[in-house]
């Protein structure tokens, strides 16, 4: 399995996540799509570690840090979604615009 196949696969999953972020209306579904993008980046990093520097595992360590930060980001994101839901009784992303005025 050459590196190029992993590159194509990771980019495909990244673009599927991007499509999800752009088109979903439910805030939780947008966060799910963001999770997909994080995972595609992790996949790419581990593929690079495996094919380019198998002994120095810097890529894998980077992926661990990305997992940690993605988990923290999702936690805060979910807390915000909950606060918006409680105040606004709905989490349709395109209808939550009360910061505008």
């Amino acid at each position, binding site marked *: *399995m050459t590196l190029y196949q992993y590159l194509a*696969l990771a980019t495909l999953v990244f673009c599927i*996540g991007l499509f999800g972020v752009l088109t979903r209306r439910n*805030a939780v579904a947008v966060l*799910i799509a963001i999770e997909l993008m994080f*995972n595609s980046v992790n996949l790419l990093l581990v593929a690079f570690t495996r094919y380019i520097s*198998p002994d120095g*595992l810097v890529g*894998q360590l980077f992926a661990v840090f990305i997992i940690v930060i993605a988990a923290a980001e999702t936690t805060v994101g979910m*807390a915000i979604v909950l606060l918006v839901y409680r105040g606004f009784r709905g989490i349709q992303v395109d209808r939550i615009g009360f910061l505008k005025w």
Partner: protein
Amino acid sequence: MTGESLAFYGLAFMLVGASILAVSVRNVFHAAMYLILALFAVAGYFVLLNAEFLAAVQVLIYVGAVAVLVIFAVMLTTRLTDARVRAHNEQVGAGLVVAVAMFLAIVMAMWSTSWPISDAAPAVDNVRTLGRMLMTRFVLPFEIASVLLLAAMIGAIVIAAKETGPPQSEEST
């Protein structure tokens, strides 16, 4: 060898299929289920790429904690009227074009560069090397990560524990 290519294409089908469904299916709980399937496929890839500690971390954190959080959020924020609400906004066409364009651009860029592929043998016991690296070379990011986790915890608690609006009707449960 055919074992690895069989595993690669099997996991590819599972990952791409699960992520397409996670993004397109209307019911958000089903989307969370497909997300878990996609996360498990990525953990399978980590094993294929000799990163077994990362595969265990991926399953432990993403499937064990983040997916549970997503499901809790879905349970708390789904209302009966959501069934008739449109799941996708009106820019589906534009989103598709942007995603495909992004995919082509990145893949062309990646495939045109020549990567310095090295055929050194992959490290066998990567937990030990990761631990040693984490403790010696990457101590600063390690400590900063703990500060970041502390900030995320305080932030999440301040946001989530704030009781605004009328007291919840289900205070009894």
